[in-house]
């Protein structure tokens, strides 16, 4: 029963975060929304582990998701701050800096 309520709450939260990611007028709304979705995904995998009855394996997977999601978030933030991922844009840009 508790797990059912938790799963439903997680799904509703994911739907809300997805709506914000689709509508979000600024980039930062979308970054926050996709970050929240990543967190909800991790929680959902952990809860599913308890539903299936093998929590240890699923929690390991969930932890790896957190680490991978962090790479994506860092890349997104770097692009939104600098406009690229650090590769040389053109010769004039390289001369200016």
């Amino acid at each position, binding site marked *: 029963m508790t797990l059912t309520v938790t799963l439903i709450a997680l799904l509703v939260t994911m739907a809300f975060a997805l709506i914000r990611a689709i509508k979000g007028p600024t980039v930062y709304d979308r970054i926050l929304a996709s970050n929240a979705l990543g967190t909800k995904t991790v929680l959902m995998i952990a809860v599913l582990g308890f539903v299936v009855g093998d929590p240890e394996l699923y929690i390991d997977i969930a932890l790896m998701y957190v680490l991978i999601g962090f790479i*994506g978030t860092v890349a997104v933030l770097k692009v939104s701050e600098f406009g690229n991922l650090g590769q040389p844009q053109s010769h004039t840009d390289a001369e200016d800096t």
Partner: protein
Amino acid sequence: MLIEAVNIVLLALLAATAIAAVRLHDLFAVAMMFGIYSLLAAVMFVLLDALDVAFTEAAVGVGISTVLMLATIGLVGRHELPSTHRSLLPLAVVVATGAALIYGTLDMPFFGDPGAPVHQHVAPYYISQSPHQTGLPNVVTSVLASYRGYDTLGELAVIFTAGVGVLALLGLRRRKRPGKHRTAQ
């Protein structure tokens, strides 16, 4: 029952994400939509008990491919050009192809049917023999790495070629060291 309901809601969220990725014009937002799509697809794979596939989807879809797409956006700019042609004919072709594919699935065995040919052909042999023949505890690993080792080698060649192509597009020029400019000042 609970898992089926979760599956349905997740599939609806996947469809919404895909439609949003098609309709948005800001490529930065589209790249993030692809990341969200991969996250939701990974949960679907977890629900289907395919933990290794889910793990690959998360590593490749959320991690590497988001980084590659963002690097490309850094090179090409983040706004889509307005489309100048009408899309009715391509839409008709896609709808017709999709209808033909759905018609084709009607002849397939039901999902999870134990009498399906895919579960009767070589799968029982792999499941019963792989611990003795290969010594690996995971049947998926033994099929990928041992029974179909040459297939996996070919796949790796294809993926390596794709990676080289992407790197060639992104440019491998050496970065200028900022130290030179500092000494000039």
